[in-house]
């Protein structure tokens, strides 16, 4: 998910050339207080006029403690964005309040009710502790994302390259999101010159179970895709697992080995997900 200042035409005109999975057009921190109107204007026209070629368009609206968020929502819905990212989410009530406004706007602009999805940015200690109720607050909510900068400020610490200050939030959020059946995205990595550090963090995110990462520069897209795209070896193995499980199940065999590794039905969903990811990444067009 690539962050872009909604007010900068040069950024929002064609970010799809870098092939992000989604873009996050920012009306919040990237836009100065006296430029909110201009940013909304630019956002609305971008959403209406630009063909983003399948890249999902998420808009980060201003926090619920500001006078801007309701108008932000009207513009997002009128423009036809795919999803709204709620800044500084702390409770289920925040999500419900946004949902109410979104539905109102969908009626106002003749959009299908429920077509605008939501995601919640968790930016505080309270938000982290309430993440389960947030994840379960709305049918529209497809995921949560950690916002490390504000969260560490709230925690009265700062971001270090060890990741120790974010470890608890990351772990809790992934576990909770999985329990609630929604997606979970990790925070941004701000040192653009340290690509090795960035790669290491994305590798860690993948191992932890995150579904993706928020990005601040197109340069970061390729490493994320590379790390998250299943390798040829993984794809071949996943195919074998799916085929073997389906064959053995018909024969009434529950546990067996594939390439020397013990396999049972518990591996089925994981293997299916690997193949689905590979297909989505364009590296697999097999029959499974």
């Amino acid at each position, binding site marked *: 998910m690539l962050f872009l200042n909604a007010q900068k035409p040069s950024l929002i*005109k064609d970010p799809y050339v*870098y092939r992000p999975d989604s873009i996050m057009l920012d009306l919040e921190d990237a836009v100065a207080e006296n430029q909110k109107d201009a940013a909304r204007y630019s956002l609305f026209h971008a959403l209406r006029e630009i063909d983003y070629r399948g890249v999902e368009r998420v808009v980060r609206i201003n926090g619920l403690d500001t006078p801007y968020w309701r108008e932000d929502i009207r513009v997002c819905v009128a423009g036809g964005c795919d999803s709204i990212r709620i800044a500084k989410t702390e409770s289920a009530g925040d999500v419900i309040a946004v949902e109410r406004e979104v539905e109102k706007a969908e009626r106002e602009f003749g959009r299908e009710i429920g077509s605008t999805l939501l995601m919640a940015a968790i930016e505080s200690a309270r938000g982290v502790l309430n993440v389960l109720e947030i994840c379960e607050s709305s049918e529209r909510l497809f995921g949560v994302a950690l916002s490390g900068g504000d969260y560490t400020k709230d925690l009265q610490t700062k971001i270090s390259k060890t990741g120790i200050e974010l470890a608890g939030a990351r772990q809790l959020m992934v576990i909770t999101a999985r329990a609630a059946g929604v997606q979970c995205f990790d925070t941004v990595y701000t040192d653009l010159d340290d690509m090795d550090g960035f790669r290491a963090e994305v590798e860690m995110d993948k191992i932890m179970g995150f579904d993706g990462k928020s990005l601040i520069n197109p340069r970061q897209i390729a490493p994320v895709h590379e790390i998250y795209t299943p390798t040829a070896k993984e794809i071949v193995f996943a195919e074998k697992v799916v085929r073997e499980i389906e064959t053995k199940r018909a024969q009434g065999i529950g546990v067996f080995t594939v390439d020397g590794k013990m396999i049972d039905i518990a591996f089925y969903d994981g293997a299916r997900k690997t193949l689905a990811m590979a297909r989505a990444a364009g590296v697999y067009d097999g029959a499974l």
Partner: protein
Amino acid sequence: MRNSLGREIPDEWLRKTGKEVYRGPSFRCESSYRKAAPTVRSARLDGHSKVVDSIRSVLEKCGVHDGMYFGFHHHFRDGDYVINLVMKEVAAMGVRDITICASSMGTAHDYIDELIEQGVVSSIQSSGVRGRIGEAISYGKLKRPAVIRSHGGRVRAIEEGDIHLDIAFVGAPTCDEYGNARPVGGKSDCGVLSYSMADARYADKVVVLTDCLVLFPNVPASISMTDVDYVCVVDEIGDPKKIVSNVIRETKDVRELMMADYCARIITESPYFRDGFSFQTGGGGAALAVTKLLRRPMEESGVSIGFAIGGIMKAMCDMMDDGLVKKIVDAQVFDSFAIEHIKRNPNHVEISTSEYANPMNKGAYVNRLDFVILGALEVDVDFNVNVITGSDGIVRGAPGGHPDTAAGARCSIIVAPLIRGRIPTVCDRVLTVTTPGETVDVVVTDYGIAINPRRADLLEAYKYSRLPIMTIEELRDIAYGITGRPDPIPFEDEVVALVEYRDGTILDVIRKIKE
């Protein structure tokens, strides 16, 4: 008369120049001709010094007069003082109607615009015209149209006698009193003197200007005493800071890096990527990044470059030092690292521009080139490229070796953003053709890559590629979809420049811009 690219070349100019219209890149291949020759006055037996104390004296000794053709090189690039020093003296002597035949001209020569106004300079024949001279051409200030030739085309024109240089002025970092000039040493090191070699061989009078006189013999000499009439020592021949840039622009622009990645993958996925392949690239951010991006796949597949052609920069020298490049044949160096490299590495050698790119000699390096990465201001749906006229119709570019390398290379790759500002790069019809589409194989943009349909082998090679390959028409439609179709630029009928193809046929004409 229309040429084979459908460009209308006025009969008047075909008559006046005796030229033919362009008929394809191979039109003059294997044809015979007799080379031109200069007038030579043989030396005395006493081995006298050829040093003359001032430019004025040199000009007098050369018998300078109205209507002469002068040759200059561009190895000092934006730091060049030579053209202005010579032309200032020519103007002071009251001489008029000079044609400057420089291998390239840039902002260092804005002063020449004044001499055009005064009638001292009446025409320009060059491979590159930028700055105020470009504007002077486009606004019709020259008495006779400019002639734009590629680097290879310029040497051909000299060797074939289309241009007869009355005097060649060779700025040289070092020279001895008998005329042996070298591109290294002194305070204005420029690495090679490739572009002046033909000038020295074919001009009636040859003058070396240097700011560092060294002991005889200054060898190995790039310009030999056998060709030199006079040596003139001046305070400075150039600004060393502008002759080479020590700052290597390593791009961080994601768009440039993305296009560089596409280029590198076009190369590595092509059938011509094999051990001993040959490669040339320019000095832009994306081009430099391509060189760097090739390193990993080359190391992984055990492939090395047989020869690389210069413009050479540090990245290529580093690859040679790491055993990834066998030979560098260099007609132009772009940074100080490359200058030092050519001095110490016997496999990094200076070549003449005729060896580099002349289409009418018996063999040039470009003919054996596998890949070249080139830029473009515009590319049209016939793959024709414009690198001369800007979006305002003004002359502000340089074909340089573009048409030469595109014609010779097995796979010529153009890299350019699809849109610059609000200007589409891929369009229906380029303003000026500088490189014919039949010699352009791949167009790489940030939005996608187009393969020339004339290249069935390449289309087949990338059939299963994951690169974003589309048709050139699709690229054009995307560009126009974003920018709209630009209004045509208003020109007058007057022809202000002739664009010659490398073989001497007329590719296109540039008309006066409407004021």
